[in-house]
């Protein structure tokens, strides 16, 4: 049985006990899938998990709290489920987690870069997977791209490709791409120097349209309806179009995710203007990992919700 069929059987088996199973189905264009809410076997027809399964279905779980639901997850999505459960934002026993080995997902922006000059991604009429490659039907003919060249950055540093906390796991577990996330991207980025980075953020954030897709796509941004970004009391942000306020929102998002972010990258993927907002969260994750050895998503108590009287890893300034 193929992975697809195995997943479908797992979903079918789960359906009697859950109100729906969240997975992926056909999207509006060949390069994009859409989250799929499977409520009955009829909905299963369009289901597919694989290279296009970009969206993190854990996003929907807090809003479905109160009834048992199923969710099909990649390894990174499973980390979000784990973190939500660790923070009691969902009840783990209310979620039926179906895992499968994930070998990476597409980054449409990388496809756009590969096709630059020839056509836009929106002109791709069909996509077909062929082993380690994809074949794209474009107005300029068939284009073959290696999956590794158009796979999301996060997949290149994936240490958890197999949903560790799955209730049902189908397929053979695959080897992690790396065993440790070295945060080399953040180190390289920081090496650009303070002045350049300040200018970088000013330039990037000036594209921001304040749509809050980054926030609403974040599975751990659970207070989005009462977000401080919209609050008038206290008035953290103006509604203006200035770069400073837009950047400050990203700071709010990053700070609120410190010790919680699993690095699923949905914030950055959701940004219609391609602003690399994950960097700020990763900078904090790196620090959390270094100080407390904590990787969000494993189910342990988040490090900022606890403390040690003596903190062996914190080297305070002695003011001598």
């Amino acid at each position: 049985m193929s992975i697809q069929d195995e997943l479908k059987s797992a979903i079918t088996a789960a359906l009697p006990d859950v109100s729906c199973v969240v997975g992926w189905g056909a999207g509006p264009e060949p390069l994009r899938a859409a989250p799929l809410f499977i409520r009955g076997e009829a909905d299963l027809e369009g289901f597919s998990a694989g290279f296009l399964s970009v969206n993190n279905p854990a996003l929907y779980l807090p809003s479905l709290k109160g009834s048992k639901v199923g969710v099909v997850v990649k390894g990174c999505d499973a980390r979000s489920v784990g973190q939500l459960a660790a923070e009691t934002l969902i009840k783990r026993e209310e979620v039926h987690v179906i895992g499968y080995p994930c070998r990476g997902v597409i980054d449409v922006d990388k496809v756009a870069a590969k096709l630059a000059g020839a056509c836009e991604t929106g002109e791709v009429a069909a996509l077909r997977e062929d082993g380690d490659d994809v074949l794209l039907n474009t107005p300029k003919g068939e284009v073959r791209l290696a999956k590794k060249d158009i796979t999301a950055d996060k997949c290149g540093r994936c240490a958890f490709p197999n949903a560790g906390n799955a209730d049902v796991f189908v397929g053979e577990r695959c080897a992690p791409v790396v065993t440790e996330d070295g945060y080399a991207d953040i180190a390289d980025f920081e090496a650009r120097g303070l002045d350049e980075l300040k200018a970088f953020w000013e330039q990037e954030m000036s594209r921001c349209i304040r749509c809050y897709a980054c926030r609403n796509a974040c599975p751990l941004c659970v207070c989005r309806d009462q977000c401080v970004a919209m609050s008038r009391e206290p008035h953290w942000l103006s509604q203006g179009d200035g770069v400073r306020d837009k950047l400050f929102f990203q700071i709010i998002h990053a700070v609120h995710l410190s010790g919680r972010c699993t690095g699923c990258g949905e914030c950055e993927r959701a940004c219609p203007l391609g602003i690399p907002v994950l960097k700020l969260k990763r900078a904090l994750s790196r620090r959390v990992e270094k100080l407390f050895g904590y990787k969000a998503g494993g189910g342990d108590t988040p490090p900022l919700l606890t403390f040690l009287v003596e903190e062996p890893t914190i080297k305070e300034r002695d003011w001598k």
Partner: protein
Amino acid sequence: MSAENVKKFISFDALPGFLARAAEKNAVYVPRREGNAVVYRSFKAGDEAELGVRPTESCKHVVFPRGEELFSFAREADKEEPGKRRLVLTEASEPGAAVVFGALSCDARGFLAFDPVYNGSGTGGTAKDSYYLRRRNRTLIVVKACKNALNTCFCNWVGGGPASPQGADVLAVEAEQGLVLDILSGEGTAFTESLPAASEAQLAAAAAAVKAAEDSLPKAADVSAAPASLAALFSSAEFWNKESAHCLYCGACTYLCPTCYCFNITDESDGLTGVRLRSWDNCMSPLFTLEASGHNPRPNKADRLKNRVGHKFSYYPSLHSGRFSCCGCGRCIKSCPSSVDIRKIVLDAVKEAANV
């Protein structure tokens, strides 16, 4: 053909110089590639306009800024009564002239959805939005016709086309290493005055390009039943819950949309001074309709998506002679982080209503 109807031509080589000269007189906005996005930026000499890849955002912010000062206020010391403060209101200064060069046809048509509303149709013309109107009147729009359709394009469903002249002052069609310019307004005539007339060969190439672009669009779906269908489904919670299940109710669709015109008004103050600001608002946000009492007429994302689609394909047409407030640019589909497809919702609604 009268003199002002002569089509002009500008070669791609001559374009940067032409735009640089225009930028001396007006703010000129052109699409520019930045990272993975294409956004409208004010043109500076030496810039390259991106006229190939279609802009991620619409150009509506040139006429309808994301954040616009309506007026400022200050509490100034009263010279006559020491210790007292006097309120001073100062209206925002007049905007200057602007040019958008390389807008999409759907972007230009988007303003046609704004126009009647901002011209005071709701109040019988007694309250016109002076801020919008003056910018609208001072913004010249040069449309760059699309060469082909994207998967998400559906301008032909709602009365548009890749080279529709609606809303444009100048319509530019790519041909022979340059642009053939169809001049559609007096301002367009003045703007292109320095340019030579297009040759027969250039005109023929442009006509062929338009034909090819139009042919690249799949046949338009019939959405004429949408207004009645959406009205009929207003109370169908099941339908809207299903259509909105994967929506994450951010504002990407509304803020990228050339026709979404809703706004918020907030005071942003700092001590004794401040501004009343008009900023883009988003009907997908629960705060849009949340009342001070805590009551919200649209508490669920299903209610809000219903309003968004209903506004474009039912309420607006009922108020504005059947015109949809959707220009079919497809940005809401293309940039939706959760792949919500407004075409599917409208078609599903038509189908569902027919079954009821």
